[in-house]
């Protein structure tokens, strides 16, 4: 059992808090306003959804540079089916369009995974090709047109005016989340005792539950403090953030508590050992890329719903933010170690920099320079800490 207090994640949280205070100070209190934090949460969800998949890809010693382009092509499919239909099919309902988009993401991801796993083409090359191929495909879906309008109810998935669940539901959901976390913690303690291990100290588990309660409560309070237009009613938790949290929980469960996730870690730690242990490394690798494709399509759902349209430039350069989020969150580029929670923090941190610099009036050129610098610095921290732990 881990202590549950990963020092990297903790350090990242503290660094993020410092950056938040700094940005808030520099923007005269704009940054930490409920309105901006609501927007920040919505903006982070696109990168956040994909970052949890990237954790698995990188943990298995691969990389996926195509996620921004896969987002674009699947988003175009989702938009086109709703706005125009295909081949005289009439308009599709948005759930049907979304289902097709997710399947398309899985197929695209699996096909790239096939080249990596069964044809031994390095993932860097396969997905660099994919970056071009699927960006081009996104253009071809509608000959470069912007596809609109989308179904009105679809827009809720993007976190716009109707895209949040309201004050009451948010509180209930918050309470349920805290109760759920407490229940899982209690179950883990019982399981340890039943097998004759001493559980973690009680105070540590209590402190963990208290910290989660504080974070969830604070989050709900802030989301509720941002009112709907011409109203006193708070917006509550944005739908895309719920999508993000749900998908991250599912991926975390896959990663930590299933054979599939265990094999991803084993492949990243020692591919030879994985083969000798009878693991079907190729199938697992294909699965990792398929999962990444589905998550890129899920990010496309949020993106198109936010825009209310599909454009072929959606997700441009998203791969950099996604990889940066994973690496900042403690996922080692050498493979074998990754954290879904860390990647979520990393996504918020990357988006905070972007968002904060916009508030401060930085040009997109300056923002690009800053994001690029942060990416290199994050990898350096990873390399430096790995060097230390190997010397030890």
């Amino acid at each position, binding site marked *: 059992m881990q202590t549950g207090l990963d020092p990297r994640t903790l350090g990242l949280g503290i660094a993020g808090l410092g950056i938040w205070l700094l940005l808030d100070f520099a923007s005269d209190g704009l940054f930490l306003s409920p309105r901006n934090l609501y927007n920040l949460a919505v903006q982070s969800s696109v990168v956040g959804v994909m970052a949890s998949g990237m954790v698995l890809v990188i943990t298995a010693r691969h990389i996926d540079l195509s996620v921004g382009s896969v987002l674009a092509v699947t988003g175009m499919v989702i938009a086109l089916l709703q706005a125009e239909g295909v081949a005289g099919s009439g308009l599709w309902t948005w759930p049907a369009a979304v289902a097709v988009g997710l399947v398309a993401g899985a197929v695209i991801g699996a096909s790239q995974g096939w080249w990596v796993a069964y044809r031994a083409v390095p993932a860097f090359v396969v997905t660099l090709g994919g970056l071009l191929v699927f960006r081009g495909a996104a253009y071809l879906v509608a000959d470069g047109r912007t596809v609109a309008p989308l179904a009105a109810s679809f827009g809720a998935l993007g976190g716009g005016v109707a895209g949040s669940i309201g004050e009451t539901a948010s509180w209930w959901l918050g309470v349920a989340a805290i109760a759920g976390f407490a229940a899982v913690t209690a179950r883990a303690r019982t399981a340890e005792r039943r*097998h004759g*291990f001493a559980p973690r100290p009680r105070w540590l588990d209590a402190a963990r539950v208290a910290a989660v309660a504080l974070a969830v409560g604070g989050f709900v309070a802030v989301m509720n403090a941002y009112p709907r237009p011409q109203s006193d009613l708070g917006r509550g938790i944005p739908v895309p953030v719920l999508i993000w949290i749900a998908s991250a929980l599912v991926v975390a469960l896959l990663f930590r508590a*299933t*054979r599939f996730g*265990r094999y991803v*870690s*084993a492949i990243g730690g020692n591919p030879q050992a994985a*083969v000798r*242990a*009878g693991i079907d490394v190729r199938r697992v690798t294909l699965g990792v890329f398929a999962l990444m494709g589905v998550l890129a399509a899920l990010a496309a759902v949020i993106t198109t719903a936010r825009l209310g349209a599909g454009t072929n430039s959606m997700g441009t350069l998203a791969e950099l933010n996604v990889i940066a989020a994973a690496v900042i969150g403690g996922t080692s580029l050498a493979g074998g170690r990754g954290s879904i929670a860390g990647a979520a923090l990393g996504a918020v941190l990357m988006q905070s920099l972007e968002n904060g610099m916009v508030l401060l009036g930085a040009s997109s050129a300056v923002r690009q320079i800053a994001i690029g610098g942060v990416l290199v610095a994050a990898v350096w921290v990873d390399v430096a800490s790995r060097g230390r732990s190997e010397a030890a």
Partner: protein
Amino acid sequence: MTHLVEMTGVQKSFGGVHAVDGANFHLDAGEVVGLLGHNGAGKSTLMALLAGALPLDAGSIRVDGRPVAIRSPRDARRLGIEALYQDLALADNLPASANLFLGRELTGRFGLLDEAAMERITHEVVHRVNPAFRDFQGPVKSLSGGERQSIAIGRAMHFEARVLILDEPTAALGPAETREVGRLVGRLRDQGLGIVLVSHDLHDVFRLSDRVVVMKAGCIVASRRTEDTHPDEVLEWIIAGAQRDAARGTPVRPESV
């Protein structure tokens, strides 16, 4: 008499190189065979064929007299054949229990990993192998060679292996740990396992084995009860191939003599 394992006429080439060239090998239950030979003599390849790490080009393998097809490590494990490699083949980033159960995890409801049960069994099994073992939580990267080996041996014991292949088991170990491995090998043999000890180290082999098998140029050139031979004689076989009648029941290919 039926052997526990019998490999007949097995061949394996890499490109134009015949790494294993029609070798005949057998192993009985409760027997430790020391497999000797120069680097490149084919001993590791022969064992990789038995462990399913490489596919056979030709020849056949029988377990308990029944012909078997070993196409993957998974097939080999199903037949009770466990291999313990020189580099110990552990995933360094994972803790002891994840390594012991790698590829054969216990799952509970919804197919989720039953970590607590795997940890408990790991504690029991590894402590039986190595009572001094302490760190079950951290990644195995930080463990000593002997501790890592006790995980791998614990794996073979827990899954009730019948054939254990030890590839240079003492290469990474200090003297005390080497002695410990010797005791373990004896214990496992007494439990009825068939053990193949792949080694360069004549001293180790003479101390631990019941029978010595020598390979040269992809063929078995000698097989002799350890007590009936002498290190100098074995060394001669390793260097020159068998000069005389090599072994009871082990045909010698003329071109390798």
